[in-house]
């Protein structure tokens, strides 16, 4: 693989890990968040994405486990499962292992289902959880972690540092947690966040963005509208639901901060996952400039609609004007722009 292609791949890894770190820092893992983004964070989508990206940074991964011991009660495990299944994002074995590990720490039964569902039927091959070592080499551990081993993943026994803090409910990024504190962990809380941070929408669109069943979202919206908490008007053949944002901001947001921006986290991480997987499955000893360019063009075409649908402004060049290997430089420039947008938004 060419030097420029290898560098872009490392830059992509560093950029995405940094992006994920920044989000978790705002949620309360130990570390300083430089992110000043005024957007909300979707915890389930972030956890699913971390199950894949976090395998390249063991410190980040273990800090997230630490965070879950303190804040895991806020996670909607049904939604976590549904998002991973529908979006083909994240690593099911890793999520299963995390859930199994959480079962020992959370008295509720909510992690059991996801732990059971992601357990491989037959004992298969074992691989290293962390992908920092060269492929093919298996690190040796004094004591492997049984929870992860059951999912075919080898790692040293987990020892959390107990440094994670409870979610800062006054940070505007954490509005989904605050809403869950008020409405309970479920559709109603997340629908209210969507309505508060946007101009509203119709049931199918909201259900799709949040990863819930359309009919159940419709029921919640109808109930809230009937009770006069939200408003509804006909919009063609659908019904548009919205909320008195200023009024609800006094309830769900701190008085000193503005209402956060809604980010479509699911399409964002779907798009990033497509590019990440395409980049990291490149066999660097067998590729040349053309293969890298061709595979990345394919990946960007597959990811483009999702990235644009994230509601973060990304510049993605139309590749039609770039013939063959010419596209690689354009792709690298676009990826840099995307990572910059994620870190500075």
């Amino acid at each position, binding site marked *: 693989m060419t030097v420029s292609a290898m560098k872009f791949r490392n830059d992509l890894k560093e950029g995405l890990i940094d992006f994920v770190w920044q989000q978790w820092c705002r949620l309360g893992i130990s570390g300083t968040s430089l992110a000043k983004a005024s957007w909300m964070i979707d915890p389930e989508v972030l956890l699913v994405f971390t199950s894949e990206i976090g395998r390249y940074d063991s410190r980040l991964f273990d800090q997230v486990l630490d965070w879950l011991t303190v804040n895991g009660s806020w996670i909607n495990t049904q939604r976590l499962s549904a998002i991973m299944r529908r979006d083909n994002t994240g690593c099911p074995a890793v999520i299963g292992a995390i859930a199994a590990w959480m079962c020992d720490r959370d008295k509720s039964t909510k992690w059991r289902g996801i732990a059971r569902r992601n357990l491989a039927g037959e004992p298969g091959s074992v691989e290293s959880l962390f992908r920092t070592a060269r492929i093919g080499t298996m690190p040796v551990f004094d004591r492997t972690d049984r929870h992860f081993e059951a999912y075919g993943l080898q790692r040293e026994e987990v020892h959390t540092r107990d440094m994670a803090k409870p979610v800062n409910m006054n940070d505007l990024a954490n509005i989904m947690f605050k809403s869950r504190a008020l409405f309970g962990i479920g559709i109603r809380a997340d629908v209210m966040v969507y309505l508060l941070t946007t101009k509203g929408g119709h049931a199918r669109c909201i259900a799709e963005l949040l990863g819930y069943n359309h009919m159940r979202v419709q029921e919640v919206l109808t109930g809230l509208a009937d009770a006069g908490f939200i408003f509804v008007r006909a919009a063609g053949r659908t019904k548009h639901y919205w909320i008195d944002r200023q009024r609800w901001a006094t309830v769900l947001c701190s008085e000193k901060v503005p209402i956060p921006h809604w980010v479509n986290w699911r399409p964002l991480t779907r798009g990033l996952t497509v590019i990440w997987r395409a980049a990291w499955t490149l*066999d660097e000893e*067998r*590729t*040349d400039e*053309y*293969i890298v*360019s*061709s595979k990345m*063009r*394919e990946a960007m*075409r597959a990811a483009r609609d999702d990235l644009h649908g994230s509601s973060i402004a990304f510049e993605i060049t139309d*590749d*039609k004007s770039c*013939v*063959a290997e010419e*596209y690689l430089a354009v792709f690298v420039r676009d990826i840099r722009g995307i990572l910059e947008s994620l870190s500075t938004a």
Partner: protein
Amino acid sequence: MTFERPEQIDGALQRLGKRLTYDYADPIALVICGGSALNVLNIAYRTTKDVDVLAVVDETENGVKLRHDRVLPEFFRRNVASVGRDLGLDEDWLNMGPKDVIAVYGPPKGMMDRLNRHEYGPCLTVYFVSRLDQVHFKVLAAADPKAQPHHLEDLVERIKPLEDEVRAAVNWLMNRETSSWFRGRVKYVVETLGYDSISNEIQE
């Protein structure tokens, strides 16, 4: 985009070969005719939009065997489409447009011995049809009233076939039961090429 120079056709096939090799595709061998073969073999130069696959072939110890019952595999077509997107070509820039020719008419006598073999990595081998066989296929294509005019133009302006080549092509086409209408079309092509003596040999 269209292919304007032989190097561009070669470049597209090389990239297709690279992709197939990278993706561990099963090796495939193809017979290619039409404008792309004319260009690559330096028989005639003209722009062309696609690469015409006459047939898939098996390379055996006993030589190359035409497999006109086989179509391009799905995985192969996906790679063709990817290369098309990379180069700004149609997604089916390499296609089996003329596949029925061999099924209906059979190959011209000795065609398999005259093929020009080009390797594009371990997974893609291309056999380009020779000049003589191109004349066969072009006379047939030009005789088709629904065909585009470039077939006759290729013959008249670019290939400029010799009398023996046209005679061989006519014999190939007439070596079966034919309609008077079809014979009339072939006569028209042969006369346009200026070989009235051959035309006179074709029965009305």
